[in-house]
């Protein structure tokens, strides 16, 4: 068993999720679990199918959505050429996977905890809810653009107090931001975790700094290596120093990161 490693693993299942205007835009990729000791919610893996041609050079980072003794599940939205190619994977295909990488979300079982998820940023919260010792202390706020069925929201809303708001039109945004502000204020003495598009996290950061709340944000900068070597994924920490998102993050305290 190992803390982390790189292994060739098989695709166990690839399952389309929901209906969006683009075919197979969202899918769950279930992979064999390598010989890891453990993984924690908020951590991620890098994957690169072994038969990818050189025109797709880098592995691609994905937060671990869920997992059990046999498998690791990733939740993927087809956005660029890498995720488009990943959507073509078939059961039985071989993928190089290295991980689990990075730090993880803070867990404080007895403290009221607010999860702010934007779009595909909901992925790591499934694992967070599944591993949390007292899910009754968890609250999920989910903002999304595609139909709710495209995301693993229903799995979470059955387990924790959850609410969602859809940004179907630009005008919907103001209400979402207002609700986010109210919730951050309500959880100013609790723990707040956020994963989503950068503007979404910036909004959460602004509210949390104003309220003096303890907020953690999960970044997803472009990465080449995932192991702290290439320095391609850096962000600026609270002192303005470049720091690796892959090894010092991906989760940062909102008062110690420039978004």
């Amino acid at each position, binding site marked *: 068993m190992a803390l982390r490693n790189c292994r060739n693993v098989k695709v166990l299942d690839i399952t389309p999720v929901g209906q969006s205007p683009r075919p197979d835009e969202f899918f769950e990729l279930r992979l064999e679990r390598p010989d890891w000791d453990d993984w924690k919610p908020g951590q991620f893996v890098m994957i690169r199918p072994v038969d990818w041609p050189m025109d797709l050079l880098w592995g691609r980072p994905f937060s671990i959505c869920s997992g059990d003794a046999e498998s690791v599940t990733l939740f993927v939205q087809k956005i660029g050429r890498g995720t488009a190619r990943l959507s073509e994977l078939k059961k039985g295909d071989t993928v190089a996977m*290295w991980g689990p990488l990075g730090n993880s979300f803070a867990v404080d079982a007895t403290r009221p905890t607010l999860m702010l998820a934007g779009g595909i940023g909901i992925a790591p919260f499934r694992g967070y809810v599944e591993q949390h010792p007292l899910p009754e202390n968890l609250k999920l706020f989910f903002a999304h653009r595609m139909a709710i069925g495209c995301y693993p929201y229903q799995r979470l809303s059955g387990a924790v107090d959850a609410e969602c708001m859809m940004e179907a039109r630009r005008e919907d945004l103001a209400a979402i931001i207002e609700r986010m502000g109210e919730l951050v204020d309500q959880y100013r003495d609790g723990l707040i975790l956020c994963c989503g598009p950068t503007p979404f996290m910036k909004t959460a950061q602004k509210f949390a700094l104003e309220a003096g709340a303890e907020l953690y944000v999960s970044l997803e900068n*472009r990465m*080449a*290596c995932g192991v702290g070597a290439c320095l391609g994924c850096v962000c600026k920490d609270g002192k303005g120093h470049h720091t690796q998102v892959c090894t010092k993050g991906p989760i940062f305290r909102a008062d110690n990161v420039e978004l």
Partner: protein
Amino acid sequence: MEAKDLQVSFAGLSMSNPVMTASGTFGFGLEFAPYGDLSKLGGIVAKGLSLKPREGNPMPRIAETPCGMLNAIGIQNPGVEAFVKQALPALKRQDTAVVANLYACDPEEFGELGGILAAEEGVHALEVNVSCPNVKEGGAAFGQDPIQIARVTESVKKRSGDTPVIVKLSPNVSDIATCARAAVDGGADALSLINTLIGMSVDVRNRKPRLANVVGGLSGPAIKPVALRCVHQVCRAVGVPVIGIGGIASAEDALEFIMVGAHAVQVGTANFLRPDFAFDLPEQMVALLTELGVERLEDFRGSLEIPL
């Protein structure tokens, strides 16, 4: 053929095999320890070091391109002192050659940095990076000026004692053989080439460059033919050993560089294909050499046959 037959010795550097990892793609080596046995590598060229810490360039710094990538990291590093105190003690316990890569703004500073690193017991060689974009004397022209290359090399050699000095050359020149000769005139014990090719990538949708620095260094399989041509030319022009770098992503790629005359190779961007990539390469080279009926690597080196 057996793994022991991959042993190479040149320029005062003795390695179990010719596979090294290229500067900037392998951190200080220890980052890759979870993924393989570092002693399987002939050598590790550490991330470029400067006298003082450097923050590097703004983001975004990397872009994937067809069969390659662009980077404009800007030599972000914690400075030589932090390397010596924090990384070197663990790194020198690994059974592999440790090469420090040097970056500075002028020949004097290169010499000072070389002196500090050469004095460290665990540093087996110095690699002088004269192929950097951010230097005060003439910017990118620095590594393109044979006079400057010679001055930098001399300055490092003066302070480096018995530690071998490798000079890393830029391909962004009109005649790389002239640059190679200048480094040799300056006292270089070996040469490594190539550094990245200057390139650019833009996005028609937002009309912006993909790198904040606008231009960056192209690496990966896309540059291998250029690298091979450069190594071929330099091996014919100078007598010192050459380390081939540029797009190596298989045992066959590595042997191509050896065949045109390189003593060793460095794996760079392929470390991003998967973090255990370089560890398996020596064994794969043994398998391919065996298939080719070659008994010793040395017999294969420089064996390119050019029909008359």
